[in-house]
């Protein structure tokens, strides 16, 4: 991953934290003074390197893990903003990435009943009796990251 792609990736994450959403290729192109096509190519390289996840057949950012920009059952409050976690692991990753406390509202995958977890000073203080299940073996996580 070259320096330009790292800069683009850093800009994406900074924008996510500042605005609560990822920048479009046009917004990033303006920020860098580059053509939109160059930024789209960088987004695609970052996707291929698993540094971002783009929506299928698109340069729209779907995930900048642990943040997700499409609906999932995992809603996270952290850093003074509401977020969506890609999965149970990533939902807990959001307060971790933001180095702060966080509250997660989710649902039991079996019965759909609402669940709540809370992280305070790094410790899980609410939801300690819950389980997290990982269905897909680690080597296949990126085969279909949306399912994983």
């Amino acid at each position: 991953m070259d320096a330009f792609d790292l800069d683009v990736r850093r800009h994406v994450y900074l924008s996510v934290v500042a605005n609560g959403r990822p920048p479009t290729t046009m917004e990033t192109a303006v920020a860098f003074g580059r053509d939109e096509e160059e930024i789209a190519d960088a987004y695609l390289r970052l996707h291929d390197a698993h540094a971002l996840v783009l929506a299928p057949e698109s340069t729209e950012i779907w995930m900048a893990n642990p943040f997700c920009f499409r609906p999932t059952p995992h809603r996270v409050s952290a850093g003074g903003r509401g977020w969506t976690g890609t999965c149970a692991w990533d939902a807990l990753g959001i307060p971790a990435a933001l180095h702060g406390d966080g509250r997660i509202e989710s649902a039991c995958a079996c019965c759909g009943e609402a669940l709540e977890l809370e992280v305070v000073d790094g410790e899980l203080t609410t939801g300690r009796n819950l389980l997290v299940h990982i269905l897909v073996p680690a080597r296949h996580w990126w085969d279909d990251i949306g399912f994983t």
Partner: protein
Amino acid sequence: MVYLRSEDHLRRWLDANGWEPGATLTAPAMNDLARAWWWSRLDPGWRPRPREESQAILDGFGLTGEFWSLA
């Protein structure tokens, strides 16, 4: 990767979908793993983490064996 209320709900969920069990962590264990895994994600000097380092994080939580092998 999903949350479940209990072992009973986990079994019912797997049975309902016809899936073989994968791996189960307690929520506190997952929180600890999430902190180790994601803590540096927003660091200005972030670089892609080599697979060996990711594997070492999993190893550090006792997550070893075929299921947890990234290679």
